[in-house]
């Protein structure tokens, strides 16, 4: 009743039949032909790439009577047949994972000393060799380096990082690669023809893609597909069966996500759940689809291996979505662990979290756009699907919304002042403005903020330095701890402009690293670009802290204080930056 599954039935019998590993099989063939087979091999690589199969073929080839061990095994001589049946005395295949102790290896070493019964060279295949214990590996070292003349060791593993370097250096190592789509499809077509399946080339392509480089997976999937769906499954059925992107099931959820439409996304999720769709598979599908979208958006559609029209369709879907939003979505969904048969809650939470975060980002960029190009503000898409009442409240609470408005005001009011005054008193910014004043300002001054701010001349580092506080203030409330402005204020100064890069000096490593974090750097770059009118990338360097550069010191000097020179180390010790 139990029969051989495809992956056992179709194990390759010759080196040239091993799919997708031509460099390795070619090398081995040459070694065989020149009679220069080494005494120890290490085969590594992902599952299902042909390690064990190659090891067995090699054992056969070495001992084959028909070819005298000079080339491919003929698979018909007595030795080959005995090896196929597993009754050949001089081929010992050891499961390294269940015979992993030092005693097992000691036993092996003793027997290796005896001459082979009938073979040319006695062959030991140790599969899953990474599971051997450390003493066992060490016991093997000497034997592996200089085995008796008629012994060949072949070690195979999926985890080369667990193999001691001392073992590795004694073996000829071959890294098996993931099998590429082309070779895999070829093999599947061959199997399909021989087994009498009526599967289209496109379906086989889908199967090959689902297997992600492992031929055993591909053959297994093919068998399951034929059993579950039938030997003439269509592409659509295949995609659905494997839970692959493109099956269309996750499409409605993704549409909702891309439009930032929380309600639609959650509703379609629940719809699918009620139909009995497995949410674990759905999550896989959503992540895969988002990845495709991301790659298309990033301008590398050739990587995703899709048809023209499929890419065009996704391009259409992606209108109005930027790469940052896709990144947020992917982050939220890829990190989820949704077991099969899970309730919809984890996915629902991810949807809500992603939508909230995207709204935050969109508000930031809306405000940013408003600062630089006021007329653009109306065109910005407003987030859809947000609950009316609680949404408004929710957003009003976020400092990231109210505070940038204050930043605008600062700019606006600064415009009215002559530039020289700013140069003299950079610390004169309304840092300590009360919240009450801010909000009343916000309502009064909205029109004023629409007036274009006087841009700093591109490349004018002096002016930027003078207005650095404005830049900092406009970043108030940004960053994950809402303290980006504090980081910049306590520790930074623009140093110089190098081409299109602005070098900012930091006094503390901690602050420098914070701002180097892409999500912070992005915000800073964006703000500087608005101020300067052209795009600058930000470069962070560490500089010595000038004794009186702190904003508090500067403010104090403004008010008539005198600077006392303290010893340098005193500043460093007391000036440890604080996270909050």
């Amino acid at each position, binding site marked *: *009743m*139990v*029969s051989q*599954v495809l992956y*056992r039935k179709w194990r390759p019998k010759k080196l040239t039949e091993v799919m997708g590993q031509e460099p390795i099989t070619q090398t081995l063939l040459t070694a065989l032909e020149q009679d220069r087979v080494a005494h120890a091999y290490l085969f590594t690589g992902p*599952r*299902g790439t042909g390690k*064990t199969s190659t090891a067995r073929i090699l054992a056969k080839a070495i001992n084959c009577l028909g070819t005298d061990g000079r080339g491919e095994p003929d698979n018909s001589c007595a030795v080959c047949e005995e090896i196929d049946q597993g009754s050949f005395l001089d081929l010992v295949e050891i*499961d390294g*994972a*269940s015979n992993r102790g030092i005693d097992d290896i000691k036993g092996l070493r003793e027997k290796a000393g005896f001459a082979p019964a009938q073979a040319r060279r006695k062959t030991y295949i140790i*599969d*899953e060799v*990474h*599971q051997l214990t450390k003493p066992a590996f060490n016991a093997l070292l000497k034997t592996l380096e200089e085995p008796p003349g008629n012994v060949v060791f072949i070690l195979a593993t*999926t985890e080369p990082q667990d193999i001691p370097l001392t073992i590795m250096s004694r073996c000829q190592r071959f890294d098996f690669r993931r099998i590429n789509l082309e070779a895999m499809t070829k093999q599947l077509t061959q199997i399909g023809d021989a087994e009498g399946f009526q599967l289209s080339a496109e379906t086989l392509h889908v199967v090959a893609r689902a297997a992600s480089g*492992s031929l*055993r*997976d591909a053959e*297994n999937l093919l*068998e*399951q597909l034929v*059993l*579950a769906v039938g030997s003439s499954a269509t592409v659509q059925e295949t995609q659905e069966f494997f839970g692959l992107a493109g099956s269309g099931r996750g499409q409605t959820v993704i549409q909702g996500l891309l439009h930032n439409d*929380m*309600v639609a996304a*959650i*509703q379609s999720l*629940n719809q699918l*759940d*009620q*139909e*009995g*769709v*497995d949410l*674990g*598979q759905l999550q896989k599908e959503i992540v895969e689809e988002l990845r495709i979208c991301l790659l298309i958006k990033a301008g590398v559609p050739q990587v995703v291996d899709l048809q023209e029209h499929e890419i065009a369709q996704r391009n259409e879907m992606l209108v109005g979505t930027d790469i940052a939003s896709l990144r947020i979505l992917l982050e939220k969904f890829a990190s989820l*662990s949704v*077991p*099969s*048969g*899970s*309730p919809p*809650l984890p996915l*629902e*939470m991810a949807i*809500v*979290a992603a939508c*909230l975060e995207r709204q935050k980002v969109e508000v930031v960029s809306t405000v940013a756009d408003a600062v630089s190009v006021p007329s653009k503000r109306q065109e910005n898409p407003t987030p859809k*699907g*947000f*609950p*009316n009442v*609680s949404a408004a*409240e*929710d957003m009003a*609470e976020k400092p990231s919304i109210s505070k940038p408005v204050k930043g605008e005001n600062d700019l606006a009011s600064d415009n009215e002042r002559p530039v020289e005054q700013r140069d003299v008193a950079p610390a004169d910014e309304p840092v300590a403005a009360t919240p009450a004043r801010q909000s009343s300002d916000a309502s009064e001054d909205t029109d004023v903020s629409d007036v274009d701010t006087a841009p700093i001349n591109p490349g004018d580092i002096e002016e930027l330095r003078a207005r650095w506080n404005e830049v900092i203030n406009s970043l108030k409330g940004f960053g994950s701890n809402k303290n980006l402005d504090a980081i910049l204020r306590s520790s930074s100064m623009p140093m110089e402009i190098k081409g299109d890069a602005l070098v900012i000096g930091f006094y503390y490593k901690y602050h420098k690293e914070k701002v180097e974090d892409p999500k912070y750097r992005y915000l800073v770059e964006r703000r500087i670009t608005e101020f300067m009118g052209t795009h600058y990338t930000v470069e962070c360097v560490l500089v010595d802290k000038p004794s009186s550069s702190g904003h508090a010191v500067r403010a104090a000097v403004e008010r008539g204080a005198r600077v006392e020179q303290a010893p340098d180390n005193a500043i460093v010790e007391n000036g440890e930056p604080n996270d909050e």
Partner: protein
Amino acid sequence: MWNIEGHDDAIALLNTSLERGNLAHSYLFVGSKGIGKRSVAVALAQAVNCLENSKPCGSCRSCVRVSSGLHADLRIVTKRNTVIGIEEVSDLLHDLNLQPYEGKYRVVIFDEINHTSHDSFNALLKVLEEPPKHVLFVLLTSNLNLVPETIQSRCQTIFFHPVSNNMLLKKLREAGVENETAQEIIRIAHGRIREALEIASDPTILESRYEKLQSLMALRNQSLATRIAFAEQMAKDFSQNRDLVLSDLALWIEGWRFLLLSAAGISRETIGRGIPEKALNYQLSDILGFLEKLMSTTAALHQNVNPRLALESLLMAIPQEKQ
């Protein structure tokens, strides 16, 4: 004659393989807990050893012995302590080389294979790929993510899908349940047909659930002292009856899920009848945060934390409603 509710796809697949005689040597059944994987696995063990023609007949000597757990060739491996250890596996590997004792096949069922240790997984690799001729493996798991790819790749994976709501409704109607109650049960059972029928058979289950949920949700308006006292009580209960507290937490999560959905603007029909409260004055992010806290606390309780500390911190974290 599989005698199993639902899972028509999986059974059809196995049946076809049985009839054509091309059963695989190792299967991986994936599906949530309580969905019926084990029943199907046992039925498969009956089928391969059944003495009658319509396999599994369920009534021949062999089938009876399998279902009562007496058959010498059926071995069900479950975790004894926390994991399925390597000793158990090597013990098993030794046995597998022996011929079947009374039937045709030695059937090995791994219940919750994801509870297997790293070393045991590795020890299984070779035998799962090429077991002796008379061996059939069935691995069961509720979380495919915890099964190494090298294991997955050697097995035929069969997914046990949750039963669709329409199907459940039909079954419940057949059992004589009213429409409204049926909807409620369907929501709770989440695709598990056995659980749905169980709840339907005992109306007090629904009622007590409902009361419990209400008292849990009312906690958010209680004073800090009351909440701490509640946490203490829960921690005490936990030391006596883990499952009770864990199911309470699951219920609580469900309540907050309702809040999340209604705050997100989902209409009631999609959610189903939940707690009889209007959407509350919460911010979405607060609800989300507390749900995360609830889930992480549940996960922590499954591991070895101080339950009182975890529960106190949970109850203190209930967000305040905006007035």
